[in-house]
């Protein structure tokens, strides 16, 4: 077992002071912090091998291309994909989802249906809404229950031969619910529907195996697993990606260009036009190595303990109501205290150095369900510790005293 206290030293930002207090960073579901090795890999890239990739014949271009393509291999291995052709680098989860949604623009028609869950992040709602408007396909919603769990019975009823695509997140960013995606995928496949899983909140916390899941598309963002901003990873089954139309046009994604006709390049280049975020992609691979060195099993065990401890401590505060109480949860607690506006509490504890998120967490449909304007959300990473939770609880108590 790793010593999680030692790990903290890898993250320089954890030394920051806010208003004279030590920073306590509990907003990891929004973005995680970055260890020195990842930061250094970015500097190292610009100091030693910065160059445009693929097209160059020179030394730097060769080195940069090698590192970039080697990173693709790392993600292929990590997600257990079949081929590096199945790994596309994008600028983030949002971009990845839009890329896939656009892929269905020619194949969907009025009468077809696409199924979304009530637990989704806006990034996994709006692109499909736009697609639905353009194609006339209808959107159906898998509802959730009071515990923040999807109702699989209703999901089964929504499925039919009309269903063409299902998109669900692996873990809800607003409530922390881990959805039974294996079951969801299996049932969709009975109707030949494709499934996209938004794994933005899953990949940082436990191991994901796309082959075992038999998922069609799986997406995540590097900045949520200790990587840099501006990098998304998109897995897609080769056979399906080959059939999808390209999303953006540009250099590198084409084979030949004349003004009459353009032929597209093979995977993965077909979906990576233009100069990618080369430094960022390479640094994402370093972040992946970093969490794999700690071990996702160790991470999961430790974060589960943090979650249990924080949940217990929170419940001891008078008037706390936790949203999302599934048995299957990771690293996120959404809550309110009495009638106090979450925004007020967030502002007060921020001045005490405790960084949490308040609001709708880009998941308004969940807020609508609970009829609340928003929640306070705390979310953990493996560098958080029990002492920080104690300080959080203390700050919350002070805030409640001030605000009531």
């Amino acid at each position: 077992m790793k010593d999680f206290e030692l790990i903290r030293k890898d993250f320089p930002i954890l030394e920051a002071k806010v208003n004279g207090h030590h920073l306590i960073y509990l907003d990891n579901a929004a973005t995680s912090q970055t260890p020195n090795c990842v930061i250094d890999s970015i500097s190292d890239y610009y100091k030693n091998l910065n160059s445009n990739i693929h097209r160059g014949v020179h030394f730097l271009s060769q080195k940069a291309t090698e590192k970039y393509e080697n990173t693709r291999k790392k993600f292929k291995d990590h997600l257990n994909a079949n081929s590096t052709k199945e790994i596309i680098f994008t600028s983030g989860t949002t971009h990845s989802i839009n890329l896939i949604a656009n892929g269905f623009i020619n194949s969907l028609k009025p009468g077809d249906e696409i199924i979304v869950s009530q637990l989704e992040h806006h990034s996994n709602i709006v692109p499909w809404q736009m697609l639905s408007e353009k194609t006339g396909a209808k959107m159906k919603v898998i509802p959730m229950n009071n515990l923040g769990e999807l109702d699989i019975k209703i999901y089964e009823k929504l499925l039919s031969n009309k269903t063409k695509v299902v998109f669900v997140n692996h873990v809800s960013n607003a409530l922390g619910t881990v959805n039974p995606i294996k079951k969801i995928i299996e049932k969709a496949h009975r109707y030949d529907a494709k499934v996209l899983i938004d794994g933005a909140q899953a990949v940082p916390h436990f191991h994901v195996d796309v082959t075992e899941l038999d998922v069609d598309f799986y997406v995540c963002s590097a900045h949520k697993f200790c990587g840099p901003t501006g990098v998304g990873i998109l897995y897609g089954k080769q056979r399906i990606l080959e059939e999808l139309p390209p999303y953006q046009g540009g250099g590198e994604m084409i084979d030949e260009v004349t003004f009459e006709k353009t032929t597209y390049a093979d995977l993965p280049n077909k979906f990576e036009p233009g100069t990618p975020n080369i430094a960022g992609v390479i640094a994402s691979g370093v972040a992946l190595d970093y969490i794999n060195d700690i071990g996702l099993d160790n991470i999961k065990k430790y974060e589960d303990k943090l979650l249990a401890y924080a949940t217990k401590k929170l419940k001891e505060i008078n008037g706390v109501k936790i949203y999302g109480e599934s048995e299957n949860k990771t690293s996120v607690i959404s809550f309110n205290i009495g009638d106090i506006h979450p925004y007020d509490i967030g502002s007060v504890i921020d001045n005490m150095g405790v960084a949490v998120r308040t609001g709708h967490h880009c998941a308004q449909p969940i807020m609508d369900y609970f009829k609340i304007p928003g929640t306070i959300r705390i979310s953990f990473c493996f560098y958080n510790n029990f002492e920080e939770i104690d300080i959080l609880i203390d700050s919350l108590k002070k805030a409640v005293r001030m605000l009531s």
Partner: protein
Amino acid sequence: MEIIEIQNEIVDEFNMFDSWMEKYEYLIDLGKNIPKISNENKTDDNIIKGCQSKVWLHATEDNGKVNFFADSDAIITKGIISLLIRTFSGQKPQDIIESNLDFIDKIGLRQHLSPNRANGLNNMIKKIKFYAIGFNKKINE
């Protein structure tokens, strides 16, 4: 009192506090005593956008002077808008339009407001000036 005098008064009051905590506590107190908007005026039209919390603001004109009423579901937001109301209620539209709002910075609040809230604050000020412009037109007709 003129707008500038009220502002100076507010700055003096806030200067008495050493810590942001006392400032916040004072703000919360002020929020509790805000001139409340009546329920029928809590319309969508009167909502100010750009805040995480909802803010309603309404204004009436009486004898060439403007009166403001507001509410919010968040208490700190209420405190902030109550400072604005204290500054602008009972003033002439023209004076409101011409006023300067640096007192927000002087009381050292800006650095304790999130950008979200600062954005909301800017929208509140816009809405207040917008009301003043409307009444000014009416008066000058």
